[in-house]
């Protein structure tokens, strides 16, 4: 079953189109990472799906139910991009209250367990007005998962958090994924999306420019695979022939004494190069393959 399905979903503010006819399908149990620069329309897209704002046109289904639909909200966990907390409530009361609002009351133990997951168990009874930015962010994540929803929207869940907290949150996301939850997250952190998400969508100017798994995106941008091979010295008689062969095999050859770097189109070419070096009886000491990072793909987009 599809957890999220949008058809021609658009949002305009006056004449400014922020989200432009997006068709998207997210399978149940997937972690979809939404990447884009500031103002790309990521948060607007999440806000439409979660009922914070209404679409200008198009339609969407969540967990197979046509939206907007209040009955499905019980199964949604949402961490909005920006929201302050109820300052007069303690962390634990916060979770209790919001679980009650969802119509899925929870026990005190469940609240403590979720606070433990985000590293806030020591602050369970502290009023949220006294929380730091990072603590507020963690509690915002905790409230999104407290009622054990099936579909979780996380809008930049780790921005502004310290490294240890980021690891905590990544572990939590993986744990939720293992439980079969569908997670839709946006991020500016390319490394995070690459590590955590099973599929990535790159959004620009209100459109999804490219979507797929990391491998699919790499395959699309495959011309940028860089291979560096450290080898035994090549005999001067073979040097010219070897150099010509390598120039035909790939691009941007950078050849030094006992090492060369070459950009190739596919991984198959790497095997061909290694075989060729073997033909010339050149010993290979080391092969480094540098695939395009998400950052490079993102910047190219």
């Amino acid at each position, binding site marked *: 079953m599809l957890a999220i399905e949008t058809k021609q979903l658009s949002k305009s503010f006056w004449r400014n189109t922020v989200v432009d006819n997006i068709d998207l399908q997210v399978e149940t149990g997937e972690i979809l990472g939404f990447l884009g620069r500031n103002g790309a329309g990521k948060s607007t897209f999440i806000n439409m799906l979660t009922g914070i704002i209404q679409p200008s046109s198009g339609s969407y289904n969540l967990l197979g139910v046509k939206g907007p639909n209040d009955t499905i909200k019980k199964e*949604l966990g949402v961490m909005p991009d920006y929201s302050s907390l109820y300052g007069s409530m303690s962390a634990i009361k916060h979770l209790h209250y*919001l679980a009650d609002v969802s119509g899925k009351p929870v026990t005190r133990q469940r609240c403590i367990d979720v606070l433990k997951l985000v590293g806030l168990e020591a602050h369970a009874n502290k009023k949220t007005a006294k929380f730091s930015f990072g603590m507020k962010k963690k509690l915002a994540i905790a409230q999104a998962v407290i009622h054990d929803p099936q579909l979780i929207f996380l809008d930049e869940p780790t921005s502004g958090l310290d490294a240890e907290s980021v690891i905590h949150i990544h572990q939590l996301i993986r744990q939720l994924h293992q439980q079969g939850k569908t997670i839709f997250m946006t991020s500016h952190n390319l490394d995070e999306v690459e590590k955590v998400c099973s599929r990535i969508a790159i959004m620009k100017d209100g459109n999804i420019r490219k979507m797929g798994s990391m491998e699919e995106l790499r395959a699309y941008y495959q011309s940028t695979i860089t291979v560096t091979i450290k080898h035994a010295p090549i005999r001067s008689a073979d040097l010219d022939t070897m150099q010509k062969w390598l120039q035909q095999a790939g691009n941007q050859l950078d050849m030094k004494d006992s090492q060369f770097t070459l950009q190739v189109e596919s991984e198959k070419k790497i095997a061909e190069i290694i075989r060729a070096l073997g033909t010339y009886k050149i010993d290979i000491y080391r092969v480094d393959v540098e695939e395009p990072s998400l950052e490079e793909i993102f910047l190219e987009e």
Partner: protein
Amino acid sequence: MLAICKREFIQSFKGIKSIIVIAIFLITAYYSADFSNLFLSLSNDFTSEEKEVIHTIGISILSMFFGMLFVMGLSHDTVNREIHERTIRFLVTRTSRASIIFGKFLGIALFWFVCLLTSFVIISIFVRDFDFIIFFQSTSLAVYYSAFTVLMSVLLPKPSLTMFLSIVIGLAFPIFNGWVTLTSNGWVSWLKYVLPFYYTEDQNFEFLVILLLAGVMIYIALLVFRRREC
């Protein structure tokens, strides 16, 4: 809805403003009953109708002339504070917008119901009688004010603006409502039908119209809130 209603109800009791308002109601109820007993024992000039309502006159005056001020003063920012601070996003992503509006409204109305009930119970201890019609008239006024407060809080996005208006409207409302109820000026006298005082002139069940008007205001608040982007 119940969770929102419960929180709103409990929140209404918190803070110095609430304590002062509750104290005013309870003290008024106590002295209204106490002095009316004294007056009745000193004079026989009261008509039988006056004798019936004299114990509750203090609370009735308080509800009519200061009710709007008190209700708006305590709850003017019930919705717009949440929109302003974006805590509303936690609610709209979890439950229906109707549940939020009804929950808020019921929480506020329930607070005033409890305040008035306590006041009338205090009076009934002195009088050994509970005047249900006047109690329901006062309660329906509180319900009307609560609905108006929720509507204002949905219509106006800034809590500072509703705070200012709560004082202005709170003071002007009873004067204006009193005037349109009594005036023969045809241009404005029709307004008495959409304002509550007209329906509390006699001790009958006309107060039910006030509840109907409150329902209309809540419905308008809901229509506006459904279109509001949080």
